[in-house]
């Protein structure tokens, strides 16, 4: 499938968000050696750290602490210094006597379209969608969904979401059209706008839900991670609570491609990564989603799985990983790739290790260990 995305080269910086602060891992030009920074905002709960590909210097960090409310820190010098948002994402104040929502934590950050410099989207828990048009300093609710009764119903309550609270995530901007947006809600399904957020429609056809529930109800849908193929934006992949899927637009129906995974591994997990140029190639990192949902690598044997034919078949990639008794897994935002050729892949584990592959998953090397529990890993090419 042809791609207009060109390969990158040079040193990669991994932006690592953890339960106890953020870290930067910088590579040499060959991605063979890595240097770990000192902790940034040690003790803060950091859900996401994302760089701005439009200037290669700005980094936003979604942070809170065990006690303090949520905020966003911003660096405009590639992580050397940080300032705090003056107006972090917050729901509208409701009249006295009414029950309003309060942002518990900011979970997801996405730069807006390349033609919208300094603009960002943020997803929160409880689920909300926010936008900044000044580089992350001030944030306002975006679109109507934060106060729409139908969306509020679909978002459900705390008991309908993940253990750490329901999350709005996977905010995706079509590189061809800034008004074409997607996002996912756990739970609440997948949603699409083609008019810059004035309206959204559900995109849940073909997705399974937990047995016995109504798949036509968005509340029952739990997308874990949605990715758009950079080289072919009409194709999206999704790791869902109930399997792995692909959709090729303009079709509105997701196809469960996880049925082709090995039966004893299954197709449950959280992260998903797509190849920077080849839309038939994607990776998942399966998790044990049986019985009580142990949320560890199946059988204690971690591995990525890759498809090179859009989900028709999958291959195990575990060279370098522990062969047994490795009871960790990889969270939703903690698997990513770079755009080099061959592409690099990176995971951060729940036990504080960062693993890298310089060859599209063929072999893995641990490049950092003994970090706090890792919540997110993003790859960046930062300017000097």
């Amino acid at each position, binding site marked *: 499938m042809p791609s207009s995305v060109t390969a990158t080269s040079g040193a990669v910086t991994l932006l690592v968000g953890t339960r106890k602060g953020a870290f930067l891992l910088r590579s040499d030009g060959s991605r063979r050696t890595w240097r770990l920074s000192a902790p940034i905002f040690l003790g803060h709960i950091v859900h996401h750290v994302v760089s701005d590909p439009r200037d290669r210097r700005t980094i936003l960090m979604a942070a809170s*602490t*065990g*006690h*303090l*409310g949520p*905020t966003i820190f911003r660096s405009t010098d590639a992580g050397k210094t940080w300032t*705090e*948002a*003056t107006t*972090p994402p*917050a*729901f*509208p*104040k*409701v009249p006295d006597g009414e029950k*309003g*929502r*309060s*942002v518990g934590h900011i979970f997801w950050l996405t730069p807006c379209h390349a033609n919208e410099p300094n603009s960002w989207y943020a997803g929160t828990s409880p689920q909300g969608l926010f936008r900044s048009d000044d580089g992350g300093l001030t944030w306002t609710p975006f679109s109507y969904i934060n106060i729409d009764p139908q969306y509020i119903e679909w978002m459900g309550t705390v008991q309908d979401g993940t253990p750490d609270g329901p999350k709005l995530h996977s905010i995706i901007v079509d590189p061809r059209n800034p008004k074409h947006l997607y996002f996912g809600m756990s739970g609440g399904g997948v949603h699409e706008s083609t008019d810059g957020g004035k309206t959204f429609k559900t995109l849940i056809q073909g997705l399974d839900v937990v047995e016995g529930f109504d798949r036509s109800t968005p509340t029952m849908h739990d997308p874990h991670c949605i990715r758009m193929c950079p080289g072919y934006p009409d194709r999206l992949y999704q790791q869902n609570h109930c399997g792995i899927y692909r959709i090729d637009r303009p079709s509105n129906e997701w196809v469960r491609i996880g049925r082709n995974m090995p039966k004893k591994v299954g197709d449950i997990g959280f992260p998903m990564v797509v190849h920077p140029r080849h839309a038939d190639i994607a990776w998942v990192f399966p998790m044990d989603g049986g019985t009580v949902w142990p949320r560890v690598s199946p059988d204690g044997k971690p591995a990525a799985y890759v498809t090179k034919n859009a989900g028709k078949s999958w291959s195990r990639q575990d060279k370098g990983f522990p062969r047994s008794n490795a009871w960790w897994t990889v969270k939703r935002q903690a698997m990513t790739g770079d755009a080099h050729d061959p592409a690099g892949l990176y995971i951060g584990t729940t036990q504080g290790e960062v693993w890298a592959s310089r060859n599209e998953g063929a072999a893995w090397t641990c490049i950092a260990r003994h970090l706090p529990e890792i919540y997110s890993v993003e790859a960046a090419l930062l300017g000097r």
Partner: protein
Amino acid sequence: MTVHIPSALQSYTAQQREIEVTAATVAEALSELNRRYPGFRFRIVTEQDTVRPHMRIFVNETQTFQLNASIQQEDHVYIVCALSGG
């Protein structure tokens, strides 16, 4: 009155642990602190004007969740990170 700042918020106050402010209510005291130290209030109080779950405010020795609670100039206001189970 004197507002006592917990360690978690002293990064906002240039490491000052006690701040003198003039205010008639807890809300006014927090607003004044937020004016001096932007972002300070939102770490303690939600957008719905409720004290965050693991934060506590005491006026002298009395805990209050009411931001409109009156305070006197000789009072001490304590902002406390709660002992949330650990």
